[in-house]
């Protein structure tokens, strides 16, 4: 019996029953840009950067189960333009000053931006007011860079069993909160060993006193583009 397959950009992609289009594509070595997906967690499909066309209909590939015979388009101009705009939306929405960011070079948002040929944020920046939380002895939270992917929320709840992070607000005022009446990270049970410490794709959750430990030029996406890294280690990408 041959494995089930769907077609993506003209190639056959094998998949297991229940696997998403994105997971199957990455496992087969075909990169689809994504941000809020993480192999270890149930996908929730919020960033929409992984959008593909399935039999002509646009869908988030991380939440769409692969089906035998589906015809999927991914690496085409129309979709890359859409993805680039979504990444621009994310840059527009937060405060991203890459040159001064500890995550620069290791940041998935920046790397996907490069991958998609994005040169500016294009839209007028919203400049939200998001104060930094430096209350915790070992961890700094710079909310300015949060892309609301909820990976820390999922990791803290599902792996750490702590629910340190949650979301509040609605629409453009949606924001990350920590689980404390004071609103301060120091008053939560977060510890540096937590899974939630290692999943942020951008530069929000930072270890104190580790700044620039990895020199610029030697960071995750410096030598290899995110499309190469993602398919080389589909299991641990976004760590």
């Amino acid at each position, binding site marked *: 019996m041959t494995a089930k397959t769907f077609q993506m950009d003209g190639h056959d992609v094998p998949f297991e029953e229940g696997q998403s289009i994105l997971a199957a594509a990455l496992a087969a070595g075909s990169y689809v840009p994504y941000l809020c997906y993480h192999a270890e967690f149930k996908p929730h499909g919020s960033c929409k950067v992984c959008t593909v066309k399935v039999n002509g209909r646009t869908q988030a590939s991380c939440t769409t189960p692969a089906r035998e015979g589906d015809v999927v388009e991914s690496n085409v101009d129309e979709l890359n333009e859409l993805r680039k705009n979504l990444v621009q939306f994310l840059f527009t929405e937060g405060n991203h000053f890459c040159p001064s960011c500890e995550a620069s070079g290791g940041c998935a948002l920046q790397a996907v931006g490069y991958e998609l040929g994005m040169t500016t944020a*294009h839209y007028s920046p919203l400049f939200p007011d998001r104060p930094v939380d430096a209350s915790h002895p070992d961890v700094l939270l710079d909310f300015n860079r949060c892309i*609301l992917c909820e990976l820390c929320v999922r990791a803290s709840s599902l792996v750490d069993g702590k629910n340190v992070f949650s979301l509040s607000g609605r629409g453009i005022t949606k924001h990350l909160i920590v689980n404390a009446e004071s609103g301060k990270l120091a008053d939560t049970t977060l510890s540096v060993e937590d899974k939630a410490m290692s999943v942020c794709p951008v530069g929000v959750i930072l270890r104190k006193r580790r700044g620039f430990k990895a020199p610029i030029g030697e960071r995750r996406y410096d030598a290899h583009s995110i499309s190469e890294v993602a398919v080389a280690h589909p299991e641990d990408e976004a760590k």
Partner: protein
Amino acid sequence: MALNLSAIVARHGGDPSRLVQILRDVMDAEGHVAPPVITALASTLGVSRGQVEGVVGFYSFLDSEPRGKYRVLFSDNITDELSGGHELRQRMLDAFRLELGEVSRDGLVSIGATSCTGLCDQGPAMLVNGRAIARLTPARIGAIASLIRGESPMDQWPDNLFVIDSHIERKDLLLSTPLSPGEAIDAAIARGAAATIDEIARSGLRGRGGAGFGTGQKWAACAAAHGGGPAERYVVCNADEGEPGTFKDRELFAHYTDLVLEGMTVAGFAVGAQKGLIYLRAEYPFLFAPLLAKLEERRRAGLLGRDVRGARGFDFDIELHIGAGAYVCGEESALIESLEGKRGIPRNRPPFPVTHGYKQQPTVVNNVETLAVAALIAKHGADFLRAVGTAKSSGTKVLSVSGDVARPGIYEYPFGVPVARVLEDAGARDTQAVQVGGPSGILLGANELGRRISFEDVPSAGAFMVFDTTRDMLAVVENFTRFFAHESCGFCTPCRVGTTLSAQMMKRLVAGKGSRRDMKDLAKVTQIMKASSHCGLGHTAGNPVIDALAKFRPSFDRKLRSLDVLPTFDLDEALAPAREATARDDAEAHFNEEES
């Protein structure tokens, strides 16, 4: 007002899925949900603190910070705006020397804006501590301001302030066919569950809440679904009615309550549910007590409860849930999340509610009007509905007509009615445009008035807002983009950011500060939202912009500056904080562009 939190929690059985209802009660008792209350609630209910805080932060009518002792919210719907709502709002702000959204320093009053309150036939309207006041005039605003100044308790305010009028202007099949309580249930029981579903399917009934899905098909799928084991099934009546310009469900619940409840019970019998849930929007507080009384009356009459109408084993009761100010909760899966006490974020689908709905059990979600029609079909059979309407749209549609018409109100027509006919009946003159189905629907220009209300041509969830030739259509569209930005749930990137960017660009365009680049970006952002959003809100949020760009292009062009690119940074505006700080407003304190 000492807060008795344990009494409130006990009233809701300590059930975390009642969180939104519990928080509403806390708001009623204290005016806000303070951080220590959030902490206490989380530990009593056994959920994380962040979860409770997240729910408070999601809904417009839940606050974690104190608002005024009198919380005034003006409806920001376009029809309220066009009938002078903004001027009245300004008058009240001036009376208390407040800015929009501000709380007075003595904590007496806060004045803000809220999305459409569903009183478009009698606007402008407002909510004061959740209670609706319609037909606002300068005199009414003056009276309300003095009641607030005198700190008069709201239950001592004159009753006439709270009177909600009813304007049922045209009745057809649904609104004119009488039904005695129990008749439809009896007919369904006599016919049997499966045959009742067949009858509904054969009638061609399609959902009246927007998507137009076949009701018989939906019920059949729910009846056949098994959930995780022996399925508990649910029937949910969607009375969120958040689409601006829609108020027909308000009237159905006010004057055809038995018919709607009968429809829910028929649905419960047909799919094998034991419980019905009504999700009613918070903006209709005048419906709460009568509805609860009606439910009690039906229980006493054996129309709800055990062995309904004597049918052995048919146990069915109905519970009322009240929303807390979120349009997205009209989307069926977000509604279910909200019913479960969570943030109203639309779920990933599939699975659909018919298999994994409320508490992951098979659930039918139907609009108020759909359920009312279903009751009549149960009694009178499929042909009763098929005899009216068009090939693909059997039956009638109840429209909520508002805006520039002589007689706003409820109009019921057979499907296929031309838009022009509705306009004529409602006394519209010099019509420039009609927004059918609300902001997420279709904007029709004056040359399209021959088009017909039906699933084949112009579908409508019920709103029908009329704009005459004196109106600035750009300002209308700007109001709609503001609505979507306010109501986006924020889950997905395209809608969360796209709705805000469109609202900002429309604001610039209306103010005459827009550039051609804004126009291009507006079209692009709209396209992105349509292509990649997670739910119907984002998919349709760009509709008014797309329609206006196509049909009212000259209105845009007139407002455009000739430049291709305009600085989004306005030097004069940037000086405003400095002017305020120095209390100056003289010519020298302004940056005059013409001179530069």
